[in-house]
């Protein structure tokens, strides 16, 4: 295929009678930061979740790091260890401390020893500026802190690609920037990033490319400058107008 880190060809997804993704073609280069936006129900989350096999698709090809994401569970396991995903709702494990949230996946997914896992976890929590909360439980810290813990947890597995599914949509406004800042640091460090978000300032600052989705299709694609200042498609224009106001 191509030398792209993520290569998607003619991807179609159906939920019963609902056609969620229609003929998606998308390449993401190594080290690129791609932002996906679009109105709700446009298939952004379905697309990003197809990349690590959380969402099954009907037809097409999804290739990640040279591996075919399909229904072969062994391949899926390998893909998931190299692709991190951060959710809108954090999905931290509420019955474990912040530290244990970061340690356990390393032990279970990579077979890493507890001592090494703890060192890695503390390093990642420190990079996310939440190391002082290591012994707390998720319900004792703020939303912004939770999302940074979720990011640290994913980074502990040393992924080559990070996926973000609306990472700031569930946050109070004053906490959005603390999360976007750490994602920005990752982007600067040349991590391959695919991020579903409506934060235009963030997209302008870090995105190499923005794609706009509507009704299961990619309707427009370009640099942040092109998309946000000179949108071509009428739906894009409406959407940009709506999120600007």
């Amino acid at each position, binding site marked *: 295929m191509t030398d792209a880190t993520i290569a998607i060809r003619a991807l179609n997804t159906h939920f019963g009678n609902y056609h969620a993704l229609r003929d998606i073609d998308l390449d993401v280069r190594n080290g690129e930061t791609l932002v996906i936006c679009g109105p709700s129900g446009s298939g952004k989350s379905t697309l990003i979740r197809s990349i690590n096999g*959380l969402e099954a698709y009907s037809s097409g090809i999804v290739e990640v790091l040279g591996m075919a994401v399909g229904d072969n569970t062994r391949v899926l396991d390998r893909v998931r260890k190299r692709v991190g995903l951060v959710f809108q709702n954090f*999905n931290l494990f509420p019955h474990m401390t912040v530290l244990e949230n970061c340690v356990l996946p390393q032990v279970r997914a990579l077979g890493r020893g507890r001592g090494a896992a703890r060192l890695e976890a503390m390093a990642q929590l420190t990079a996310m500026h939440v190391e002082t909360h290591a012994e707390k439980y998720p319900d004792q810290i703020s939303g912004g802190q939770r999302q940074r813990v979720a990011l640290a947890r994913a980074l502990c597995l040393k992924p080559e690609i990070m996926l973000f599914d609306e990472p700031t949509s569930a946050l109070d406004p004053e906490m959005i920037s603390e999360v976007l800042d750490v994602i920005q640091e990752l982007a600067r460090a040349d991590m391959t990033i695919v991020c579903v978000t409506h934060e235009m300032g963030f997209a302008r600052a870090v995105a190499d490319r923005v794609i706009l989705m509507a009704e299961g299709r990619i309707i427009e694609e370009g640099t942040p400058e092109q998309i946000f200042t000179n949108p071509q498609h009428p739906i894009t224009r409406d959407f940009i107008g709506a999120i600007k106001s």
Partner: protein
Amino acid sequence: MAGTMPDALIGAMPPPVIRSGPGAWLRKHFFATWYDAVFSVLFAVLIAWVLQALMQWAVIDAIWRVENRELCTREAGACWAVIESRGRLILFGLYPFDEQWRSTLACLVIIATIALSCLPAFWSIRRLPALWIAGFGIFVMLMRGGFAGLPLVTSEQWGGLSLTLFIFSGVVVIGMPLAVVFALARRSSLPVIAKSFGFFIDIVRSLPLLALLFAAAVVVPLLLPDALAGNKLMRVVVAFGIFFAAYQAEIIRAGLQSIPNGQDEAAVALGMPYWSRVVDILLPQAFRNTLPSTVNQAVITFKETSIVTIIGFFEVMASGNAAIGNGEWGNQYVEVYVFLALIYFVFVFVFGLSRYGAWLEQRMRLGHD
């Protein structure tokens, strides 16, 4: 200042008074209105009268020693001599007299096991099974003996409270892991497995416990060769365990359904294997979410063990009946039933420790702040 309220008026309103102290507490809870006061006084008198009568009967007028048993008449107080005389029968059944210290120790081990499982420190998927297997194993070894100079006492001679505890802990040790398997199988993504386990669980739940126990005691030996059939007590405990598992499986399933989908998705996305997702993420949350129902199921099971009387086992209830059944102590049935009630009460209280455990865990978390 151009306020909407004149300063004079603000000054005129006194701040609300917060009264405290025992006087205020009594007033608020018992004497807030005239009819509150009437009911409070009425019930205080009633409670005092009942307590006084109970004390008179159970302590002051009571006859404690067997030597004084001729004093036991209908007019006298409680005749606790019956417990001195028959207490060991109630607690240990026909277990050999000289070996009853083993039975006592075994019962204490199981009580400790129940109490420890109510503490959050043991609420882990490894520690809880280890605790119960150890507790149950020590119980059986002590009761059975046959090693290190301890004479062998086969289960035909077990009885009383220790038999009740054996049945209860055996049912939990067999039933709880089965319940987890049933619950997971019923949620399986393979329709054949999900449907057949669902069918099995519903069939077991629709059968009366008694019918199941009779079948295990009487019918199974006709179907299986002797080597496989085991003894009657084992078969009854296994059948009871399956019955417990069917109910507990539905509780666990409800607990699993209450966990947001994102929990499993996050674990999948982190590359965690199926067994780890179940053992580390789903089950601990499912059990925490259903702690009250699970404890409730354990209490019901503990009390239902008395049903095995009907197929010829002398657990604590039947031993109590035997203690008053032969005429010698026939008039002291009230004392014996009060004693039995106290035994059940103590156990339900021990189970109640789990509420303390839940509270402890909550406080432990808040303590981190």
